């Protein structure tokens, strides 16, 4: 491959992003179907309400190989009332499951960070299971310039 200048790389990146945006409406359904199935499996069919959980990710990820991911769930984290599990789902990846974080009341706060791969521009979903059996979810869109799942 010939050496690209920084300018050319940036131009390429924005074209790719624009292309991804253009394709998005077509693929969006397939994405949500996969993600929906996973959420269903996680909640056992129960509905997850929006809120209580905050998912923080960059709006634009230049490198899909390592995208920072951080979430916080509002919870007192006591023995009676704590966050059990949080699942992270990326419906646009070849395999939508990303990771499941298991907390205990000893965690103090239900907050964690990691780094994940994203194949393309998509919505990332976080679903939390609380000790009272309720489910809460959050969604955030990440625009990916270079996908991170290998060719």
């Amino acid at each position, binding site marked *: 491959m010939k050496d690209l200048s920084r300018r050319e790389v940036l131009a390429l990146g924005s074209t790719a992003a624009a292309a991804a945006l253009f394709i998005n409406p077509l693929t969006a359904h397939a994405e949500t179907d996969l993600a929906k199935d996973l959420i269903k499996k996680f909640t056992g069919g129960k509905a997850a309400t929006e809120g209580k959980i905050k998912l923080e990710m960059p709006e634009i990820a230049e490198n899909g*190989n*390592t*995208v920072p991911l*951080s979430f916080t769930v509002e919870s007192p*984290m006591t023995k009676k009332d704590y966050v059990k599990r949080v699942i992270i789902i*990326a419906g646009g*990846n*070849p*395999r939508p*499951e*990303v*990771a*499941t*974080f*298991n*907390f*205990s009341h*000893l*965690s*103090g*706060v239900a*907050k*964690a*960070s*990691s*780094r*994940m*791969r*994203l194949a393309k521009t998509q919505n990332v979903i976080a679903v939390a299971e609380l000790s009272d059996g309720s489910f809460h979810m959050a969604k955030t869109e990440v625009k990916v310039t270079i996908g*991170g*799942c*290998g*060719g």
Partner: protein
Amino acid sequence: MAKSKPRVKAPKKASKGDIVTIKTLISHIMETGLRKNKKTGKIIPRRIINKFQAKFEGTEIFSVDLDPAISANPFFQFSMKAEKSGEFEFIWTDDNGEVYSKKSKLTVS
């Protein structure tokens, strides 16, 4: 692949009731099992860390079930409420059955 090297950044001291933050990282390729060898066209077999556990005095405080979408050199940041002095143990489990671990002491005053 080079041998996986776990790294942990955990506080040594804390006051009772404090929420301490722990950062861990392990060098690992996290091969997804979806990539192909460009020369042979064969799929490179999956090899990831599939489980991470953080224990304090033998009790699990935090754990993660990892899937291939976690980046290479998996990094985790999480918290614990410091109630008593003791020892952390961090355990990573590889697809090939290898287990890597690291310990760290915490003194609570």
